[in-house]
Every structure is written in C-alpha cells, then in structure tokens.
C-alpha cells in the first residue's frame, strides 16, 4: 500500500510542477520542489481523487517534505481501512 501511495504522490507532484519523477524523493522539501500553496492543494486534490480519500484542511498544516504528505495520507488510508 505504501508503495502505491508513494507512486501516486510523486506522480501528482511531477504533474503539477512539470518535473521528472526522478528528481523527487521522500526527503525532498516541498520548497525545493517549488510547491506553492496552490500547488499543494492541487496535488492533494489529485491524490484524493485517485485514492478516494478525503484529506482534511488540518492535515495540510506543517507539511514541509514529501514524507510529511506520505505520512498523513498513510494514516488516512489506514483509518479508512
């Protein structure tokens, strides 16, 4: 499941920022990838659509790395399961 989430998130970031998936890893900071707040909510929208989950606004606070997004989504997916 974690691999799937990782792949969905990386694809969403790559699509939004028009960059190669290869330059993104778990430790990449969102700032270094040029992810603005509008980018962030668009990436979250893509992930919600694909994984069929609802990400609350509070979950978007204090996101600084790709891993932070992965952790938040993993929790949501687990609680849903």
């Amino acid at each position, binding site marked *: 499941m974690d691999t799937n989430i990782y792949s969905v998130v990386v694809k969403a970031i790559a699509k939004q*920022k*028009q960059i190669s998936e290869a330059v993104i890893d778990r430790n990449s900071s969102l700032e270094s990838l040029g992810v603005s707040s*509008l980018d962030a*909510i668009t990436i979250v929208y893509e992930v919600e*659509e694909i994984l069929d989950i609802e990400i609350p606004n509070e979950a978007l606070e204090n996101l600084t790395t790709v891993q932070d997004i992965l952790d938040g989504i993993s929790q949501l997916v687990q609680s849903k399961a």
Partner: protein
Amino acid sequence: MTKKVVVTGLGALSALGGNRYEFWDSLLSGESGIRPLTGDFPGQLKIVSAAQIQNFDSQLHFSADRLPQLDRYSQLALVVAREAVTDAGLDAIELQSAALVAGTGCGGKETDEQAYRQLYLDGRKRLHPLTIPKGMPSALASQLSMDLGVTGPVFAVTSACASSNHAVAQALMLVRSGMAEVALAVGSDAPFSFGLLKAWEALRVLSPDTCRPFSADRKGLVLGEGAGALVLESESHARRRGARIFAELLGCGMSADAGHITEPSVDGASRAIRSALHNAACSANAIDYINAHGTGTELNDITETRAIRQALGAQAERVAVSSTKSMHGHALGAAGALELVATILAVYTQTVPATQNFTVAGEGCDLDYVPNDAREMKLRCALSNSFAFGGLNAVVAVAAY
C-alpha cells in the same frame, strides 16, 4: 483642454483569422467567418451556424504548466493582447506602469460548466482547486497582468455585449486623467459551451443560417467568439517614443435604457451616441462612418437605425453605417473590441468594410448600410456602437490622425 489619447496597437482574434491582418483582409474582401457549428456537445442543439475561431491551438501559445490555469476566454485575451503590445512596440518598462481594463460578457463559462457537470451529472465529490481562479469573470484581467507584466490599475468590466466598449471607455478615462500614460483595453468571450448555447437558444434570437443586418429577411444574430485588444496612450507619450498612431480616440458615451431587460430603447441608444459626440467634442457633421451594433435581430436593427437618426439628425442621411457582425458574428463581450479595431482600421486606411449578406433593406432600416462591397471614402471621424441586452449602452468615437 482634454488630454489627447491615441491608439498605437491593435490585436484581433476571431472567426476571421488569428491576427488583425487576417481580420482586416477578410473584412475588406467580405469573407465570412460564419460556418456550420462544430464541437463536441453532450446533447442536441438547434443552433446550426456560428462564427468560431478556426484552428486555434492553445499549446502553440501557452506552456504546459500555464494552460491548466487558463479558461478559453483568458487564452483568447492573452493572444490578442500580446499581438497589440507587439504591434505598439511597447517595452517591458512601459508595460509595467500601464493600466489594463478587460471586458467580458460571459467570463469563464467553459470552466464553470465542466465543473457543474462533474458535480451534478458525474457525481464527483470535489472540484479542481483551479475552478474559481480559472472561471471567475476577472480571471482574464489577472492573467493579462501576469502575462504582460502590467502592474498599474487592472480590472475587468462586464456589461454583456457592451463590455468591450465600457472597457475602452474606462481605459480612455485612465489615460485622460493622467493615472496612466498607457492603457490596454481588451475584450474577450468564448461562448461555445453547451449550457450557454442552450441558454441562447431559449432567447430565440439566433439565426438559422447567416447574419443579415438591416435586411428585410434577417433572421437573427449568429454567435461568435473571439477577442480584440487596443493599446491606448497619451499623444505626448506616443510621440515621445515615436510610435505609429492609428487614430485618435476622441471620446466615449455611455447610457442605460432603464427600461426592459432585452428590448432595446431608441432613446437610450441615441443618448449614448449623443453623449459620445459631446465627450469627443465632435459634431454630427464630422461623423462619416458608424460601425453599428447591427446584430441582425428584428429589434436591434430597427431601433439602432432610429437611434442614429435621432442622434445625428439630417446628417444621418450621408453617414456610412455597416455591421461587420455579418462576417465575424456577434462576439458578445468581445464584439466592441473587435469592432473598434475594424473602425480604427477603417479610419486609418480610409476604407469602410461592408455589411455583408445584405439583400433588401428591412422596414424602417433606411440608412446607407454599405451593402456587400467595402468602400474607399474620406473618413474624418467614426463611431463604434455597442448596445447590450439589459439596456447598457456604450459608444466610442475615433478620428483620423
């Protein structure tokens, strides 16, 4: 003494072509942009004719990361504004301090309709985060400011089919007042989305074939899409930088019918024309051409004819009046900008584009409508009329420079 304002750059994107040169060539040769409606619509439409832009490839104009932010109406606006700015030879510093007023009648309808379809029909639970910033009626103004680097006063105005002329009026006042030396006026509309077309059908004003303004056998208007752009600047600024000057923007007049939500009023339209003449300090004797609102509907054409007679008196007899909507269709909020580009090029080249598809003059339509053939003639001053549904009227006056 009122500051002189001149026009130094033009852009046009319509069913008549991708730039102002193609636009003007088509207007002079009488080529029509009205063709069978094309598009992928999710239901039946009665509309058969439309003036749609041919072969518009958004990927040629915008990068992959910009496109998702741009509704079609913003895309059209950006393309014409870039053309007008290049045409005027403005540099980045001049643009930075410029003003920009954008007119649109419909706004980002394509975006809104796609979103509502997803919610109401497809049962989706959420909408894309760009739905608001892409579809809002001021999106084109924001996108224009970002694309061109314009940081002065920037806003959108909306008054249905008079939106562009109201935008031009605002831009003119910004330059006259000294708030900006350069002001862009842009009008854009992209109305070919299914829900909007059905809404237009319901008004029963659309022609089943073509647009025949002022003719006895006219059957209504033909919807068009497009955008027009004009660069306005103070005469002193234009001369200082050695810009080519197409025409002087003499003045504008605005009025409201305060009457009916769809039926136009002779008095309201006439007051807008008289107000434009007054604002332009121009007498009816000096007007040689009027680019008419001329939609091809029963009511507009007869009302506009009476309004021109009421405003110009005996001078109406010798004024050339043509409706270029017979070729580029009714581009709604973009109509005024496209038609002002036509009016300015008429004055600049001393040639009046014709009213195409003209057969026999309709009852009560008794002016010189320049039927079917463009005409070379002496042009001193000209007017461009826009009379919107809901009785919002705006008329712009220009003069040969």
